[in-house]
């Protein structure tokens, strides 16, 4: 039961504090920002969902190349359209918060990078990932030769059972030895 009434009551606040990694201030700030996005007519409806295009107007998500994937991963709507309710929004912020564990972050990072939702990062997923990182237009993409070399290097470093894809355990193993991950995988409102 999300709350989109204008105030969050104390019981809900302590429940959210227990279930997420956010502090009280952060939950209240998230509630404020969420309520700003809700269209006027639905503001009193409990558990309303914001469509993805509204969520993407948040400055924290607007310039992020993975914004659509983030919405789709955290959305619990039945139609898989990337719409978020307040619970999903808090889940998102909790996974990206400063105090979330490495395990949570790597789990969600894996799901975000898994563009085709098949449970592993194959060559296709990795190619899409690199293109998202570098820009996506023709002159900012790597040449096919460079892309092949890059993906070969990545698979060589991370694919332990040599099956050509990176599964969750291998991904978490690589991430645990990557020093930059925790500091870069962070969104603070």
């Amino acid at each position: 039961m999300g709350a989109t009434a204008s105030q969050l009551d104390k019981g809900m606040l302590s429940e959210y504090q227990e279930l997420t990694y956010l502090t009280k201030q952060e939950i209240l700030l998230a509630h404020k920002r969420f309520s700003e996005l809700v269209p006027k007519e639905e503001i009193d409806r409990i558990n309303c969902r914001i469509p993805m295009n509204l969520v993407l107007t948040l400055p924290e998500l607007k310039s992020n190349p993975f914004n659509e994937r983030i919405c789709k991963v955290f959305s619990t709507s039945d139609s898989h359209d990337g719409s978020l309710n307040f619970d999903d929004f808090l889940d998102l912020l909790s996974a990206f918060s400063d105090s979330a564990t490495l395990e949570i972050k790597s789990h969600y990072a894996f799901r975000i990078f898994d563009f085709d939702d098949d449970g592993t990062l194959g060559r296709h997923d990795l190619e899409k990932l690199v293109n998202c990182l570098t820009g996506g237009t023709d002159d900012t993409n790597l040449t096919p030769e460079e892309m092949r070399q890059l993906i070969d290097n990545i698979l060589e470093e991370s694919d332990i059972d040599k099956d050509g894809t990176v599964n969750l355990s291998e991904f978490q193993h690589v991430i645990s030895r990557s020093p930059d991950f925790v500091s870069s995988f962070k969104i603070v409102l």
Partner: protein
Amino acid sequence: MEVDPVFTIDGSERITIIPLLDQLPSYQSLLYRRKSSTIGNKRRGSSRGRFGSLSSIKSTASTINRHDDKEQGLSEGRPIRELAMSMKDKRTEREKRSVKAQDLGNWGQWRQNTRRCLKRWKEDSEDRLNSMKLWRRDIHQIEARFGTGILSYFSFLRFLVVLNLIIFLLMFCFIMLPIIIIPYTSGNATYTHQDSGSVCSVYPSSTRRGLVIFHEHITDLLSGGGFLEQTYLFYGFYKVDKIHYPSCTYNLALAYLLATISYLLVSLIWIVKRSATGFKQNLVKDEDSFQCFCNKIFAGWDFCITNEKAAELKRSSLLYELRTDLEEERMKQEKAKRTRKDKCQIYAIRFILNLFVIAVLAACFYSIYLATTFSQEQQRNHVKVNFIVDLIYEYLPSIVITMANFITPLLFSVIINYEDYSPAFEIRFTLIRCVFMRLTSIGVLLFSLWSQITNCGEEECFCGYNTALYSCWETRVGQEMYKLTIFDFIIIAAVTILVEFPRKLIVTYWKSGFSKWWGEQEFGIPQNVLEIVYGQTICWIGTFYCPLLPAICTIKYFFVFYIKKLSLIKNCRPSTRPFRASSSNFFFLGVLLIGLALACVPVTVSVAQINCSQACGPFVNYNTSWEALPKAALELSDGPRTFLHALSSEAFAVSFFVVSCLAMFYVIALAGAHKKVINQLKQQLDMEGQDKRYLIVMLCQAQGLSRAQPPASRSKPRSGGSPSYHTSFNCDFPQGLLLVHPTPNSSTHV
């Protein structure tokens, strides 16, 4: 009897010998390699023959069941928010747990509640402490616009502000506070400055008399002379030796010495603690290129960037970095093909260029030496030309050091192009050269000062130092450090206002070839970091001679933060070459440690070797400053004295050294053993993967044979439920896969 999910067990509970096991790739390679140690006891004891496979299969089945139980137990013990589920699932899990908790009874529930309350209280207090951190909002702004690389520079600056504040509080509480409160307490102070008539204890007053022209005040303020010389600012003012209270005696000389040692130790411990994680990553990572690609791709994007322009910049810098790395890899392969003649040529070029670099460094150091001696001479002879020239003479060493530190990086970055190193090594080597230049120039300045202080011409110095020139040499050294600090701050402010700001105006408003060539100022992180480390090294050296210097440095870095932030936002664009947050932490703290090590050398030499001034300061009654410690130790009672003697004896030092060597060897051996185990486990995983694929192929064939109708073909091998994350099925299996048991639900455990 457990139901084996894969194999059928007949009524007599004996599994017929499955030839499948012998065909598995891992078993085949086992037989080939004759390694039975690690894998053997788990799956098959090769010495026991094929019948051993029965018990091993049963044990595998039981391990599978135990594994499920362990999994469930694992997820129960953990706090709910560590589970990667949606909020709805977390709520149901919580209700499940509270139902279970009610079985615990009152005592168990009360314990759980108190534990939860304590944890909540701890988190709240941590949160409140975090919100009081200095500059939290500014740093958040910078992070959002520029990413974590530049952020690391500003958080480093914040760390230095706090460190300097702590050092100042240390010096203040132990040295200045006792002197300040003497009039208000019943203490009785004994002073050191006894006019014994000897020539060593003459200290002419430097306060100006008569009509003082205004600009002389400015000169005094900027050079630490005149009215500033006999204040709390410099060593010479602390004339108190001991303070006698009714109950005890406060030995100020000893406190001065111990405070110096402790501020160096505190800095060392704090820096090492702060860099602990960074060092681990960078030293353990002995395969340097290993994982650098994964790190760049998976952890490459800064999710905290909110600015569109910054995001574009980040993308282009990532592209640049990836292209550079790929090119470097290709170059490495090409380098391996180099002929011997090419190699000789390159080594010869490198040798000549290194000689050139050494010559340039020597020239810079000699000019610093000349400038220092000239400046000291001018001050001694009190040659007064006019205001500006006087100031230049005072500041001549600082000016020469700053100019040398400005020219040499440009020179180094030009030279490195001809030396043909890989791009990453080029950057690092240039940085090392710049660090060396910066920090050694301070050393040269101090060396030239000391050569003047301890050199009395032809004969041996009467008082141990050159009294004719320096009646109170510690104050003079303190003044030089003070001047360096002030000048450093003036330069930082002046360069930002007078150079970067016009540059930005010119480049924005006057479009020409020149402005395009000059380009916008780049916020080069390494050079900025070297600047502040240089300032901090001066602070560490100078605190012994100028106890208020940490306070001055705190204020200086406080303003530098705002100046740099303004410069970053208004004048600069972030550099195209990206600077990773993790490696930058290692670099910053590594350079800071080098600075600290360098700062310890002059302080140690002057405390232990050079005779302290007889005319000023708290150590007049001793030959060297260090002597205060042994003399105080002699006055202790028997027990502590023998203990201290034991600590400083050779037997203790040698045995301590031996023990620490043994500990180091043990840890290195342990690391080597762990590495071996990791390699073995990796090979085992590889084999397990092959086994799995083989088994799936066999299963498909078996099912294809046993089914009457063709299997329901699905486009995806799995239904739309939770995909199994831990097994990577190759998606080219055309037939649908039907396992007897569905894939496990919890796909989240590590």
